[in-house]
C-alpha cells in the first residue's frame, strides 16, 4: 500500500495526458532554473563591470585614451557601451559643426540608443520567467482536473465507492498541481528579484550617461567662450 503511494510510483501510473502535463511542467521548471542561474550570474558580472568602469572613469584618465582603450563597438557592454557611443558621436560631430547644441543633441541620441540596447540585454529572457510563473499553476491544475475526471469515470464501473478506491487516483492527480507550484514559486520569486536588479543597474547607467553628458557640455562651453574671446 505504502509502496504504491510513493511519488515516483504515482507518476508512473498516471494517465497519458497527466504524464504529458507533468513532463511539460518539468521542462518549464528546468528552463526557468537555467534562466534564473544564467541571469543571476550575468547581472552580478554586469554590476561588477560597471563598478570597475566607474572607478576607471573617475580616476582622472584622459577621455580620448579611455576611448581608445575600450574594445570595439560591438563588444562593449554596459556603461562602456553608453560612454563609447556618446563619445564617438561627439568626436564625429565636433569637426563638422560649430553649434554646441547640435553636438550635444547628437551625443544624447547616441546614448539613448545605447541605453535602450542595454535595457534589452539586461532583461533578456526575464519574460519567460514571468510566463512560467503565471501559467504553470494553471497547467498543473489542468492535469489534476483531468486526472480526477478519469478517476471518476473509472469509479463509475466499481461496485462500491470507498475512500481506498478513490484516494490513489486523487493523490495521483494532485501530483500535477504540486509540480505546477514547484515550477511557479521559484519563477515568481526570481522574476521579481532579477527584474528589480536589472532596473537598478539600468538606473545607474542612466545616471552615468547624464554625468558624462554634463562633462561634455562643460568642455564645449569652455571652448566656445575661449573662441568668443
Amino acid at each position, binding site marked *: 500500500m505504502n509502496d504504491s503511494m*510513493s511519488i*515516483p510510483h504515482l507518476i508512473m501510473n498516471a494517465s497519458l495526458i497527466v504524464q504529458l502535463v507533468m513532463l511539460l511542467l518539468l521542462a518549464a*521548471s*528546468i528552463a526557468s*532554473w*537555467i534562466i534564473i*542561474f544564467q541571469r543571476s550570474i550575468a547581472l552580478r558580472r554586469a554590476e561588477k563591470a560597471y563598478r570597475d568602469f566607474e572607478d*576607471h572613469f573617475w580616476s582622472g584618465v584622459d577621455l580620448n585614451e579611455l576611448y581608445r582603450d575600450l574594445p570595439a563597438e560591438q563588444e*562593449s557592454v554596459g556603461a562602456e557601451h553608453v560612454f563609447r557611443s556618446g563619445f564617438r558621436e561627439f568626436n564625429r560631430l565636433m569637426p563638422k559643426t560649430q553649434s554646441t547644441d547640435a553636438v550635444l543633441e547628437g551625443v544624447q541620441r547616441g546614448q539613448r540608443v545605447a541605453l535602450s540596447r542595454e535595457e534589452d540585454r539586461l532583461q533578456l529572457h526575464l519574460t519567460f520567467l514571468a510566463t512560467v510563473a503565471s501559467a504553470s499553476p494553471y497547467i498543473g491544475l489542468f492535469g489534476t482536473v483531468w486526472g480526477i475526471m478519469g478517476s471518476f469515470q473509472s469509479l463509475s464501473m466499481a461496485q462500491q465507492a470507498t475512500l481506498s478506491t478513490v484516494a490513489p487516483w486523487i493523490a495521483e492527480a494532485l501530483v500535477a498541481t504540486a509540480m505546477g507550484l*514547484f515550477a511557479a514559486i521559484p519563477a515568481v520569486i526570481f522574476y521579481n528579484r532579477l527584474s528589480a536588479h536589472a532596473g537598478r543597474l539600468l538606473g545607474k547607467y542612466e545616471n552615468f550617461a547624464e554625468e558624462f553628458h554634463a562633462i561634455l557640455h562643460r568642455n564645449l562651453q569652455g571652448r566656445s567662450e575661449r573662441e568668443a574671446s
Partner: protein
Amino acid sequence: MAKRERRVGYGWPVLLATGVHIAALMLTIVKWPESESDPTSSSVVQATLVRAETATDQPQQTEDSTPPASQPEEEDVQEPEEPAPSESSEEPASDSDAEVTDSAVEEAQAEAQRLQEEAQRAEEQRAEAERKRQAEAEAERKRQAEAEAERKRQAEAEAERKRQAEAEAERKRQAEAEAERKRQAEAEAERMRQAEAEAERKRQAEAEAERKRQEEAEAERKRQEEAEAERKRQEELAERAAQANDSSLDSMISDEEQSIANAKQASEAANGFKNLVRRYVEQNWNIPSNASSELRAIVRIQLLPTGELVSATITQSSGNSVFDHSVINAVEKAAPFREMRELDASVKGQFREFNLDFNPEDIRR
C-alpha cells in the same frame, strides 16, 4: 577588463538547474522510506531513552546536591579564624602608647584565652560539620537507594510494556495472517463460482444447439415419413391402414422422447437464466452499510417475454425497510433482462413470474 564579463554561457546554469531538480527528486524519494520506517524504530528508541533518563538523572541530581552542602561547611570553618589575626593586630597598635608591660601581659592572657575559645569554637564547628556531613551522607545513601528502587521499578514496567507490545504485535500478525487466508479463500471461492457459471452457460448453449439439431432432424424425418406415407397410400390401398398405424406409432414414440429431452433442456436453461438474473441484480445492488448478514428478502419479479420488467414486489420482507428498498432498486436497475428473448417459449412461460432470494452474505466480501 571587458572581455571577461562579456558573455555568460549557458553551460553552468544548465548544470546547476539539473542539479537543483535532481536534489528535489532525491528529497521526494528518500523521504518516503524514512517516514515509513519511523514508527518501528521510534518505539525502540523511546524505550531506551526513557530508561537512560531515569538511570542518569537522579544520580546527577544527588551529585549536584552534595557540593552546595559541603561548601558552607568549609566557609564555616574558615570564617572564625579570619577575624582573629585582624583583632590581634589592631589591639596592640592602640595600646602601645600606654603601659607596655601591663598591656603586654593582659594582651597575652587575652590572646591565649581568645585562642582557646577560638580552638573550642572551631572544634565545635568541626563536630557540627562532621555531624552534618554524616547526615548528608545518610540522606545521600537513602536517595540513592530510592533512585535504585525507582530505576528497578521502571525497568520492570518497561519490560512489562515491551512484553505486552510484543504480545500485541503477535496477535496483530496472527489476525493479519488470518485475514489474508480468508481473503485468499474468498478469492478462490469467487473464481470457482465464476468458472461454474461459465461452464453452466456453455452447457446451456450446447444443449440449445443440440435441441435445434434434433428438431431439424425430426422435421426432416417427419417430412420423409409423410412423403412415404403418401406414396404408400397411393400405391397400396389395402396396406395403407396398417402402414399408417405403424408410422403414427413411431412418431408418437419419438415425440415422447423429444418432449422428455425438451423438458430437461428447459430446466437447465431455466437454471441458467435465473443465475444470470441473479448476477445482474447483484452487480447493481448497493448493499446498505448497516445491513447484517441475517437479513433476507424474497422478491417476486414479473417479466415481459422481451425481458422488460413489469413489477418487482417484496413477498417476504427482511424487516429492514432500507434493505428492502435497496433490493427493489437493484432489480429495477438490472432490468431489462435481454437474455429472456433467447429462451424458448416453454421456458419463457416459467419466467414470466419468479422469486429471487436476497442475502448480503452471498455478495459481500
